[in-house]
């Protein structure tokens, strides 16, 4: 069997991992296994490698071939294909569409649950609450339930920072 990375040497290291309900297989030669840090206790993650190999295709298809480039750091899709890593925090927005499918295959969910820096905790809660209220408002308007809509609109006004962040639909 051929090594899936260099496509030259014979694969002697075979890895199988199940992420969610997907089985991922990887066959590597000794050298590529070493280069990818399979013996490295800290940094090795199977998904890392799968990312370097298959993920860029997902990114490419998501952006329909356009060569996306991060406006902040200049990182491109080709760079991602090479390294399996992103360039900066803004890249997560630049490549958001392609990343979504990828994240689904390697994580339990698409939304962060857990620790939040204290300074951002309040804004995160407020943003979440505003989003929920907006959804409610939209539904009430669709249902032509103007009484509920008015109540929700009043509630939105009580959320700090609402005026700046939310455009209340007419």
């Amino acid at each position, binding site marked *: 069997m051929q090594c899936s990375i260099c496509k030259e040497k014979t694969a002697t290291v075979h890895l199988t991992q*199940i992420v969610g309900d997907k089985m991922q297989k990887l066959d590597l030669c000794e050298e590529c296994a070493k280069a990818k840090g399979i013996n490295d206790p800290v*940094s090795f993650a199977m998904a890392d490698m799968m*990312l370097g190999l298959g993920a860029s295709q997902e990114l490419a298809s998501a952006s329909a071939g356009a060569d996306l480039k991060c406006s902040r750091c200049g990182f491109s899709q080709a760079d991602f294909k090479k390294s399996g890593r992103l360039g900066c925090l803004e890249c*997560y927005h630049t490549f958001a569409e392609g990343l979504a499918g990828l994240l689904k295959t390697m994580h339990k969910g698409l939304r962060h*649950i857990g*620790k939040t820096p204290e300074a*951002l905790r309040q804004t995160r809660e407020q943003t*979440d609450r505003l989003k929920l209220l907006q959804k409610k408002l939209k539904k009430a308007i669709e249902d032509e339930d103007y009484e509920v809509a008015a109540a929700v609109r009043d509630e939105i006004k009580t959320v700090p920072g609402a005026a700046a962040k939310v455009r209340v639909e007419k």
Partner: protein
Amino acid sequence: MKDIHTFLCSPAESTRRHGPHDRIVMSSRVRLARNIRDASFPGWAKKPERVRVLEIIQPAVSSLPEMADSFSEAMDNLGALDKQILVERHLISREHAAKNIGSGLVVNRTETFSVMINEEDHLRMQALRPGLQVRQAWNAIDTLDSELEQKLNYAFDNELGYLTACPTNLGTGIRVSAMLHLPGLVLGEQINPIIQSVNKLGLAVRGLYGEGTEALGNVFQVSNQMTLGESEAAIVERLEKVLLQIIEHEENARQSLLEKKPKVVFNHIGRAYGILANAHSISSKETMNLLSLMRLGVDMELFPGTERSLVDELFLTTQPAHLQKQLSDKLSAEERDLIRADMVRERLKNVSRPLIKPPASSTN
């Protein structure tokens, strides 16, 4: 700057620490990945930017109360041998050992905390504890991280959580892991089904030493893989549950080996002792595999009066960089094999050969 080796606690001291279930769980570790807002990730940042990031982060980390007695150094100031020692101590990754200008390290003297600066992310911080203490390790690193977020502006997104260079670490940026000694499951040929069932739970199991999938010294590492969509507490709890089950399987495997194939077990342990106590040339790989069997013998009370820490100390001090560090001349691998054998023979001088069977009172 002082030598990292003289700064760290001695190998003998570090291997004498005790924790719950340390017969089987050698250590527990929790690592967090963090980045700061106003710089590209280390792999993409140019050298001046990495240096600037290091100059921001290094003093912030060094000033934490947990790091009051710490070693803080730029990677380009460390020699290859010192870097390798840090890898053997599990304080830095191999990837970080290859870093130079613009990367750094802060580690405290007791080795309970280690922070890599500009590895794959701006910050990779870990808490290390002996035995099964994943929860304690998480609490410790959580505290350190909360102190650090007061000083640094973290890259955090409301939807995606902590933003990391690699999407595999996104969200919590957490990797919870434990290092396990599983000779019973390996000798009983039960290790593969165990690995497969643990994999099905979304956790990774692999040999900590050796090439590819080979596990030298019967030492395995179990860790979480998913970081987004599950809280740190849930990940820690899940891993802890799985670890307790593996511990139970290992204890059962040892018990059943003693009942069904005692001669096979005593033969392995007796031969391991025979070689270690008498060899004049021995490779690092063979040493690890034989020490693992001796460790099992200590657990089975076949070596009365011998502490497990003697074996654990040799496990560390016979590794190439630790061995080389004790000598003044640079040695070839063949020469190291001679010195290693001398050292092991000397340390086992007062250890009597194993009992023919465990003492009757042994309840294991």
